């Protein structure tokens, strides 16, 4: 479903700040694969997701989704195939717009925007049901501004928006990292449930090793712009936090493993 081949990306080439962020990355996700991605700060995890989404253009390599080449498409045209949730809860929603208006923008992802009414009554009913399934009481606040919601509520809403049209690939970039542990667990549970129920193909970056082991059917470890571990099926089931830390420290690198990652 997602095929990344020999992807390389260098930031600020030819300057003192030159940084090889992705170094010949290959990654293939079958339909329904749910891969978690871990790695130290600066390993290139976000850059990988951003290259897939078209935020950055890669220097080399190709990206295909469902067999379709994305390389030449700008970010907004790739969006019809992708759902995205970001680390920053403020990033995925429009704060000054209502909950239902945000959902309506997401429902029309990949469609032409016309002069038809922005939110129709039939949609509203659908949104009500969807919001109810989050169990956060948002279904009674549909015409409130998103800016009034808490970080966790905004992330749950962004998740709903990202999955609304059953995207071919769902990209989650540390989407629970900015939340308190309880809310983070809730958002992770919701994500897992959506991915399972809809059979989504998903790439989820996380700093939390337990989450990385607990969720998904594949685990990918990155370091210095490379994939250094790709465990699937039984191999993944056998992974432990201690085992991962060991693998990680074998990798000679200037990346620091922070506390967040060890204890998560």
């Amino acid at each position: 479903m997602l095929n990344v081949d020999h992807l390389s990306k260098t930031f600020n080439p030819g300057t003192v700040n030159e940084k090889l962020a992705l170094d010949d990355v290959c990654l293939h996700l079958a339909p329904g694969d749910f891969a978690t991605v871990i790695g130290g700060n600066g390993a290139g995890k976000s850059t990988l997701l951003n290259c897939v989404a078209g935020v950055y253009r890669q220097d080399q390599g190709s990206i295909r989704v469902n067999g379709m080449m994305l390389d030449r498409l700008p970010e907004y045209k790739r969006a019809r195939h992708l759902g995205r949730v970001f680390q920053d809860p403020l990033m995925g929603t429009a704060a000054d717009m209502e909950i239902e208006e945000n959902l309506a923008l997401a429902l029309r992802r990949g469609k032409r925007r016309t002069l038809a009414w922005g939110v129709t009554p039939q949609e509203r009913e659908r949104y009500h049901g969807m919001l109810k399934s989050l169990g956060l009481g948002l279904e009674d606040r549909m015409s409130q501004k998103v800016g009034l919601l808490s970080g966790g509520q905004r992330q749950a809403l962004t998740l709903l928006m990202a999955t609304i049209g059953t995207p071919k690939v769902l990209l989650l970039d540390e989407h629970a990292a900015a939340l308190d542990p309880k809310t983070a667990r809730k958002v992770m549970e919701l994500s897992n449930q959506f991915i399972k129920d809809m059979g989504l193909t998903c790439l989820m970056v996380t700093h939390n090793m337990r989450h990385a082991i607990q969720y998904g059917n594949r685990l990918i470890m990155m370091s210095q712009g490379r994939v250094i571990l790709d465990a699937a099926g039984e191999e993944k089931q056998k992974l432990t936090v201690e085992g991962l830390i060991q693998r990680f420290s074998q990798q000679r690198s200037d990346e620091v493993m922070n506390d967040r990652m060890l204890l998560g």
Partner: protein
Amino acid sequence: MEQVLLGALSLGLLWSIMALGVYITYRILNIADLTVEGTLTLGAAVTAQMIYAGQSPFLGMMLSFGAGLLAGLATGLLHTKLKIPALLSGILTMIALYSINLRVMGKANLSLLRLGTAYTVIGEWLGLDKTWAVIAAGAVMSLALVFILYWFFGTELGSAIRATGNNPNMVRAQGIHTDTTVILGLMVSNGLVALSGSLIAQSQNYADVQMGVGAIVIGLASLIIGEVLFARNNFLSRLLSMILGAVSYRIIIALVLRLGMPADDLKLFTALTVVVALFLPRLKEMRDTARHVTKGSHHAER
């Protein structure tokens, strides 16, 4: 005095259409667009030249609106395609428009005295004198535009424009080309400003190449006065508050002039009003934080 207030009312109604345009860029798109200084004059120049050439003033108004759309397009292309910062893009178009406006008019000032304007026609229809014809036309136009804008920004396309000013990242992630929405917003805004310029020129019976100087500040002053005094927490009320704000601004100006302020100081006065109004929310914030700190309560930013 009554005459003064009526004059302020009619001027306020005509300028409120420009305030609506400023609202679209400044509040919805989150861009301070200086193009409007040139666009206001452009609208005046096009209509004046059309009337001068013996054409219908209504046709002139439509052409003015169209010319405004093009001016907005120019700024939008500079900003989105050439990646020139919005403020500078606006300034560049504004400067270019100065020459274009001179070309359209053929000279620095075009008089419409004794030529039929839209108000002459409307006045004849309704049996009103000039002052009341201007007020009637201004009120109907500004109200109609408020409702059209309310509808437009409720559509799929309008929602996309609103979201762009809010969070362009999210808008792109939802499959919308933010270049297009920014350009569209700038076009609609400048179309309205040009229409306002057309109506103003007809009411004062001349178009002048200097007309637009300081227009952005007048627009902002009207916007802020409208929001502070009249706006409630919904979109329709915020649009309506632009009309009330523009009229209030004109009444305030008329009053301070009557109280003896020299007309030459007007722009200084307006600029200071905007400075104070822009600073007020900050002042309130600072006072609130000071209060929290003294109470010893901890409030995280945002």
